[in-house]
């Protein structure tokens, strides 16, 4: 590498003698550098997304016929109780996992944001451990810990006189279980993002507030929260996009009926429903229609959340 650099430099040294070919290379270079992303995103992101809308209009069997049926898949979808069940499950799990996660992260970031905190590195690193643990492993462990008969949690609750809770079998219980797993995985990462933003706030602002008699809570509400606005918006939008596409947790929670997340579809999410119809039943057209519905849901909720969260204003 060093030799080619020096020879090329020697050739190019006299000004004005750069070859035409080299000049073209230089002109094209920026586009060549960004091309891989656009190529990859185009082939594996954009084209499949657009193609989803197309396939949704067909009765599309992966190894058989493709028959154009217009909006029939959608009429069928809206009349399908399983679809509405999956849609409500998705929204419920998303709310149960997002709201506590962001609140928890905010509180922990506030606690960590202290100049004299000891073991700061240890706390930060520990909170990133769930993020590096795979969803598959997480799900298997949590499903066991939340087991009705032999789970640690119910065993501990037993001391408080609580009857064993069958998390996996009930609707709310299975949603809570999945939400706990999602929260566990992401709250540390979110905490670090919030902490970084907190540390960027000049100390003088807090000092001035303290002089004016503002206590810890008031400082938190009137200085920290407004300053965190960009990162809060970012985390709300990304956790909306991610939280509505949850798949692995519900698939692995139920060992007996994985594709429906239990016998009565108590925690089947839209992505899991999509998988069940597309790859379990080989109805690519119907599966794609679920994808379109999910797309609309994600875009709608992400937009609503974006608009709502940008309303957080600095308060005086």
């Amino acid at each position, binding site marked *: 590498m060093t030799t080619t650099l020096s020879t090329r430099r020697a050739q190019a040294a006299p000004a004005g003698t750069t070859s035409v070919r080299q000049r073209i290379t230089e002109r094209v270079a920026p586009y060549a550098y*960004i091309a891989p992303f656009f190529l990859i995103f185009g082939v594996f992101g954009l*084209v499949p997304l657009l193609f989803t809308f197309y396939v949704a209009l067909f009765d599309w069997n992966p190894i058989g016929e493709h028959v154009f049926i217009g909006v029939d898949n959608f009429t069928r979808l809206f009349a399908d109780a399983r679809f509405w069940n999956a849609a409500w499950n998705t929204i419920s799990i998303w709310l149960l996992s997002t709201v506590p996660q962001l609140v928890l992260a905010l509180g922990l970031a506030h606690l960590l944001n202290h100049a004299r905190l000891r073991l700061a590195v240890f706390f930060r690193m520990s909170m990133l451990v769930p993020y590096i643990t795979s969803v*598959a492993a997480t799900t*298997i*462990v949590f499903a066991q810990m939340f087991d009705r008969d032999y789970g640690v949690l119910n*065993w501990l609750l037993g001391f408080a006189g609580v009857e064993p809770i069958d998390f996996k079998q009930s609707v709310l219980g299975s949603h809570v279980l999945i939400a706990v797993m999602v929260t566990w995985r992401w709250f540390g990462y979110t905490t670090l993002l919030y902490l970084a933003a907190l540390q960027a706030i000049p100390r003088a602002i807090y000092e001035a507030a303290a002089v004016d008699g503002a206590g810890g809570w008031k400082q938190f509400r009137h200085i920290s929260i407004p300053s965190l606005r960009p990162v809060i918006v970012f985390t709300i939008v990304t956790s909306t996009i991610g939280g509505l596409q949850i798949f692995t947790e519900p698939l692995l929670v139920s060992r007996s009926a994985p594709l429906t997340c239990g016998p009565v579809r108590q925690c089947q999410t839209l992505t899991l429903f*999509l998988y069940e119809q597309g790859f379990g039943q080989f109805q690519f057209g119907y599966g794609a229609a679920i994808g379109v519905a999910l797309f609309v849901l994600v875009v709608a909720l992400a937009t609503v959340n974006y608009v709502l969260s940008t309303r957080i204003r600095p308060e005086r």
Partner: protein
Amino acid sequence: MTKTIRRSGERVRWWTYVLLGLAVFACLFPLYWMFVVATTDTATATRLPPEIAPGGNFFHLAGLVFTTVPFVRSIVNSLIVAGTIAVGHALLCSLAGFAFAKLRFPGRNVLFLIVVLTMTVPTQLAVIPQYMIISSLGWVDTLQALIVPGLASAFGIFWMRQHLSTTISDEILQAARIDGATTWQIFWRIAFPLVRPAAFVLGLLGFVTAWNDFLWPFIVLKSPEMYTAQIAIKALQNNYNIDLGLAMSGSFLATIPLLVLFVFVGRRMVAGIMDGAFKG
């Protein structure tokens, strides 16, 4: 490294440590529990009161994992996929981030806006056409079906652009140009070495994401020899005759490589995430 400015003055209250300690416990206990069930005899998962100390049965269960599924192969597959993605992703995103941060060319701002906007596109719901494309490429049940789509990301480009525009001054680049360096030489000899730490963390994040990915490998991979570690865990769980200890053991074995990695580079990961795009 900029000096961090934090909440001033007052000393840390004791309950701060209690609350943070609880958070740490919540983060680490599930992993400890995974280890406990993976090391005691096969009936531990179904006994009350639960065992809370690890037993000596780890090697028995680990042995079962290796004979039930081609586990070594699946770890190797995961290493190939995650390793290639880590290196490729860091390089390609640095290159694109360099172009957006330091090169002037027509259409730059519009193209960068498009990159940022693609971050909001939920592509996971397009798995059916994605599968069709992979299928028409003849890539079903191959590792490149996992590797190629993960080689570049909008997040990575955004991240590297941020670092490149703050770390490297235009004067250095201009000086290099006057010396007759080509754009590629400027990138490879000057810019990339200066942002290597950021690229390293980006590579780590890519590695972790690829190692833990589930949905896409679950759809694309068919034969047990092609399984990644995560799909192997799922296969262990499918095995009804053998109890949960086996799945736990597999989960634990598949988590060890990342834990080991984390011990060495976790600090840099934390710093990298905090040093990312949202400071200020």
